C-alpha cells in the first residue's frame, strides 16, 4: 500500500480556477475526506488523482511514482461513483472480475478473488444477478467490491452515499469505514455532508473556491478553525464583527470583549453556540459577560437554541441542553451571555 502526494496542483478551465495550489500528503492507509460546498473543486481534485483530469500545474505522486501525466489505466486507483457505474450488461460477478482480468490475474484465481471481494460486502450470494436486479444499497456495495477486488493502491470515493436513503447511508458508511480499516487502504472520499465527513475521516480537508482552507482532525477543525469560512462550514458559529487591538476587541455595536489573540485591526469573533453560557443575572468572574434580550427560541428536543440580541449590531446564538431543571428563557427576557476569551478570532 502507498500514500498519495499532491504538490501545488492547479486546474484551470480557461480563466476559471477549479482548483488552485492544492498541497496534500495522504499517509499510507489514511482515510482522508475532502469537504466543501458545491463547486469548490472536490471532484476535480479526486479526478486528478484518478487521472481523468490533467493538472494545469503541479504534480501528483502515488507511492513513489509520479503519475501526473500517466493515463488512468496505468495508475492503480479503485473508483466508486455516486451513480454506482456498474456495467449493466455484465453480472455482479463479471463486474467485480473486470479489474482482475485487466490486471491479467490468472483465470483460475479470478473466481476466488471475486468471491472474497463479494463476501467483504456480504453479497456473495448475488453474483449471478445483473445490476438492475439489485437495490441501490446493494449496487453501491458491489461498486465498492469491484473497486477493491484488484487491490488498488488508492481507493477514491466521490459522494458514494448521496444516492442512498438516510438509514442505508449510515449502514454503508460504517461498512466502508470498516473495510477501509481492515484492508488498510489509502482512501480519499469526497462529500459535502458534514456529518459523514466527521464520522468517517482520519483527517479532513476543507476546500472553498478551489483552495484548501484547512487540513486537520475533526477536533482541529471544530475547536481551532483557522478562518471564518471553516468556522461557519464545520459546525455552527455566530459571528461578532469589530476591531481588535492589544487583547481587546470592540464589537460593531461598541461592546468590549476580551480575547486571547494579539490581532490588530478589523476582525471577527466566532462563537460556538454550546460554548456560550446563558444566565439570568451577571456572573461574577467571567470576562465576557454581556446583557441582551432573547429574540427567538428554537426548540429542537434535546437541545434548545436561544437567539440573543446584544444591541442593534451584535447578535449571538446560545445552545442549551434540555434537562429537567433547565430554565428555558422566553422571547423578550433579559439575559446575560458569556464566553471564554479563548474563542476563535480571525482578521478580516
Amino acid at each position, binding site marked *: 500500500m502507498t500514500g498519495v502526494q499532491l504538490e501545488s496542483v492547479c486546474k484551470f478551465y480557461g480563466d476559471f480556477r477549479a482548483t488552485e495550489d492544492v498541497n496534500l500528503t495522504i499517509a499510507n492507509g489514511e482515510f482522508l475526506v475532502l469537504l466543501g460546498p458545491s463547486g469548490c473543486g472536490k471532484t476535480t481534485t479526486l479526478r486528478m488523482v*484518478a*487521472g*481523468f483530469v490533467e493538472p494545469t500545474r503541479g504534480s501528483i505522486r502515488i507511492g513513489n511514482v509520479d503519475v501526473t501525466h500517466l*493515463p*488512468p*489505466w496505468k*495508475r*492503480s*486507483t*479503485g*473508483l466508486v*461513483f455516486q*451513480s454506482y*457505474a*456498474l*456495467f*449493466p*450488461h455484465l453480472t455482479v460477478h463479471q463486474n467485480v472480475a*473486470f*479489474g482482475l482480468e*485487466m*490486471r491479467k490475474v490468472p483465470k483460475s484465481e479470478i473466481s476466488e478473488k471475486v468471491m472474497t471481494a463479494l463476501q467483504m460486502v456480504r453479497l456473495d450470494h448475488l453474483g449471478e444477478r*445483473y445490476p*438492475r*436486479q439489485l437495490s441501490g444499497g446493494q449496487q453501491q456495495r458491489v461498486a465498492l467490491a*469491484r*473497486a477493491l477486488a*484488484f487491490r*488498488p493502491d488508492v481507493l*477514491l470515493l466521490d459522494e458514494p452515499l448521496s444516492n442512498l436513503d438516510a438509514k442505508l447511508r449510515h449502514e454503508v458508511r460504517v461498512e466502508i469505514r470498516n473495510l477501509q480499516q481492515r484492508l488498510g487502504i489509502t482512501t480519499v472520499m469526497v462529500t459535502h455532508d458534514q456529518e459523514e465527513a466527521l464520522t468517517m475521516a482520519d483527517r479532513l480537508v476543507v476546500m472553498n473556491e478551489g483552495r484548501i482552507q484547512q487540513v486537520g482532525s475533526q477536533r482541529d477543525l471544530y475547536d481551532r478553525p483557522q478562518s471564518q469560512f471553516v468556522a461557519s462550514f464545520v459546525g455552527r458559529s455566530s459571528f461578532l464583527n469589530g476591531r481588535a487591538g492589544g487583547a481587546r476587541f470592540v464589537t460593531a455595536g461598541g461592546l468590549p470583549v476580551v480575547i486571547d489573540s494579539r490581532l490588530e485591526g478589523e476582525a471577527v469573533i466566532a462563537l460556538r453556540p454550546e460554548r456560550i453560557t446563558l444566565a439570568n443575572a451577571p456572573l461574577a468572574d467571567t470576562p465576557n459577560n454581556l446583557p441582551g434580550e432573547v429574540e427567538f427560541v428554537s426548540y429542537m428536543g434535546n437541545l434548545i437554541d436561544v437567539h440573543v440580541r446584544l444591541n442593534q449590531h451584535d447578535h449571538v446564538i446560545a445552545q442549551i441542553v434540555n434537562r429537567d431543571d433547565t430554565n428555558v428563557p422566553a422571547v423578550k427576557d433579559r439575559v446575560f451571555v458569556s464566553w471564554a476569551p479563548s474563542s476563535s478570532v480571525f482578521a478580516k
Partner: protein
Amino acid sequence: MSADAPQRSAALTATTLLGPATFVAALGVIGPMLYLLRYSFNQYDPRELMIETFTLKNYQAFFTNSYFLDAYLTTLRVGLFATAVCLVFGFPLAYVLARSTSRYKNLMIIAVVVPLFVGNAVRAAGWMSFLGSRGLLSVTLMNLGITSGPTDFMYSEGTVILGIIAVNLPYMVLSLQSVLEGINRNLEEAAYSMGARPLTMFRRILLPLALPGVAAGAILTFILAMNAYATPVLLGGPSFRMMAPLVYGQFQLNNWPAAAAIAFILMLTTLLLTMVVSAITRQKFRVT
C-alpha cells in the same frame, strides 16, 4: 363498470389515433406490394405485356442471367461496404458529439444533418465538379505534378460508394449518437480505473452497450444503400448497375413481371440481412 371506463376510452383513443395511419399504410403500401408480388409470378409477353399465370420464370431468369446477377452482387457489395465505412467513420464522430459539452453541440449536430438538405441532383453536380476530369481533384493532382494529364474519377463503383456514404453517414451518426448519449460516462471511467486501455474499454464496455445503436444505424444505412437510386445513376454512369435502377429499367421496358421479381428479390435480401443483424444484436445484448 366505471373502473374500466378510462381504459376503454384509452383503447378507443388509440384506435382513433392509429386508425388513419394504419389505413393509409394498408392502402398505400401493403396493397400495392401484394399486387407487385402477384405480378412477379406473371409472364411477360412482348405484345400482350403481361399474361396472368403462375410461374417462377422471372426469378429463375434473374438468377441465371449474369447481367442481373452482376447488378445483384454489386448492390450487395456496395451496400455492405458503404454500411461498414459509415459505421467505422460514424462511430468516432457520434462519440465526440455524444460526449461534447460544448455549447455549440446543437450546431454540430445540425452540421451533420445539413448535407441532407441538398437534393440528389445538386449533390451529384457537386461531386462532378470535384471528381470529374476537369474537377478540383484532377486539376490539383496535375498541378502538383502527381499526374500528367486529367483523370476522371467519376463513374466508378468507388464514386458511387463515396456518394452513398456521404448521404448515409448522417443517419448512422444520429442513430449512434442517441444511444451513446445514454451511456453514462462513468462506466468508461470505471473501466479505465480498473486498468482497461481505450481499445479494451471500447470492446468490452462501450461497443456492447452501443450495440442497439450500431444495429439501428447499420440497418438504416444498409436499407438506404441497397435501395439507392439517384446516386448510382448519377455518379455511376450508364454502365454501372445496381438493383433499384434495374427495377426501374424493367418497368420502362414494360416488363412488369421482371421488375416486380427484381424488386422482391431486393426487398427480401434487405429484409433477410436486416433480420440477421437484429437477431445477432438481440442475442449479444440479452440481459437475463
